[in-house]
């Protein structure tokens, strides 16, 4: 049975139940821990490490670490802000993130995190890797220039009969997402829509839907990512807009 526990985040006493991960427990207490690969309702993966926190002095991923009694968690510190910023900057230079021409711009979680962390320019040199675009499927475009290999599509998207539409191929720096071509040829509009929403960046785009929202009304145009979590803490009636 789940039992109530108390722990602290940056000195603030929080309460939760056992069986929760640190990131979810923090969210319940109105504290936002930034993350990219984590998604509500999908088993955590801990691949992006953006949610790195210090738990009892040790660096750990908040999305894969179960919360426990008496944990002392550091979240919003100078050190962690810089560590997270470094990860985000690395992701920007590692791929080809041309925000001005990307359909996901404004709704992109990677971009939104960069806005939240006030990144004006990455501290690392741009790599400009050569990556492929696969537009052969009738409903989905897969643009590997933008993929951050968070595996959200692999973990969250299944066809009606439980088959995987997405998978990883290769290893190391050649690691890439592949779409099952025979399954992809018959997916519904709804599934294609969901796949493009599950993707935190613009690597999966539903065809013929780009640039539908005007600039100014997109998800992260006016309020930073995580502000709904923080807002929920100050006003209990604020609705959570989880993905």
């Amino acid at each position, binding site marked *: 049975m789940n039992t109530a526990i108390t722990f602290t985040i940056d000195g603030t006493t929080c309460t939760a139940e056992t069986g929760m991960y640190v990131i979810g427990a923090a969210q319940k207490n109105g504290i936002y821990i930034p993350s990219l690969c984590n998604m509500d309702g999908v088993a955590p993966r801990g691949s992006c490490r953006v949610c790195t926190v210090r738990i009892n002095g040790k660096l750990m991923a908040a999305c894969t670490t179960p919360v426990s009694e008496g944990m002392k968690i550091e979240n919003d510190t100078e050190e962690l802000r810089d560590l997270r910023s470094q990860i985000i900057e690395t992701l920007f230079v590692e791929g*080809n993130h*041309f*925000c*001005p*021409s*990307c359909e996901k*711009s*404004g709704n992109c979680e990677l*971009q939104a995190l*960069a*806005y939240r962390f*006030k990144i*004006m*320019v990455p501290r690392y*040199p*741009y790599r*400009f*890797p*050569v*990556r492929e675009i696969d537009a052969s499927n009738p409903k989905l475009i897969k643009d590997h220039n933008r993929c951050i290999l968070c595996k959200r599509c692999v973990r969250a998207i299944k066809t009606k009969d439980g088959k995987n539409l997405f998978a990883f191929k290769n290893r190391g720096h050649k690691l890439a997402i592949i779409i099952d071509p025979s399954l992809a040829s018959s997916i519904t509009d709804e599934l294609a829509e969901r796949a493009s929403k599950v993707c935190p960046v613009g690597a999966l785009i539903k065809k013929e839907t780009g640039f539908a929202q005007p*600039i100014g009304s997109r998800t992260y*145009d*006016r*309020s*930073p990512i995580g502000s709904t979590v923080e807002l929920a803490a100050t006003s209990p009636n604020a609705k959570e807009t989880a993905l």
Partner: protein
Amino acid sequence: MSKPVIATASLAGCFGCHMSILDIDERILDLIELVEFNKSPVDDIKTFTKMCDVGIIEGGCCNSENVHVLKDFRKNCGILVSLGECAIMGGLPALRNGIPIKECLEEAYLHGPTIEKGNKIIPNDDELPMILDRVYPCHEIVKIDYFIPGCPPRADLIWDALVSLVKGTPMNLAYETVKYD
């Protein structure tokens, strides 16, 4: 005290960032009170006539002339600012970075659908700047002091950043204005 002197240039850009400078609307009258322009397309001064306090660079470096102008700006400006995505990360011109330069030139001058028949040459004249192997962000060529993102950067962002810079006040840039698109 004399006014701070500003210089601007557009390298491998589309002049959209300069348009966004003009987009500050009637504040342009305040700007004239606040600063003096030197080498810039805004006043059409072609060469530096004195040391400038702030140099604003739009666009990345796609050819030898861009590099020359950028280095000239570094020499003649106390503070150098990258304005817009192209200056910061190469922008849309950098979409060619994954394509070999030979292929780019052949597509543009030999095989493209709009090439006139019997007129197929790749321009190669001493007068023309050499195209670089890829498009480089400005800060990979010279030291850049500040970065103002956007495509184009919002006029309010340019205004807030520039006014803070020339007045020496802290930069409190509004969330709504700092965007990459």
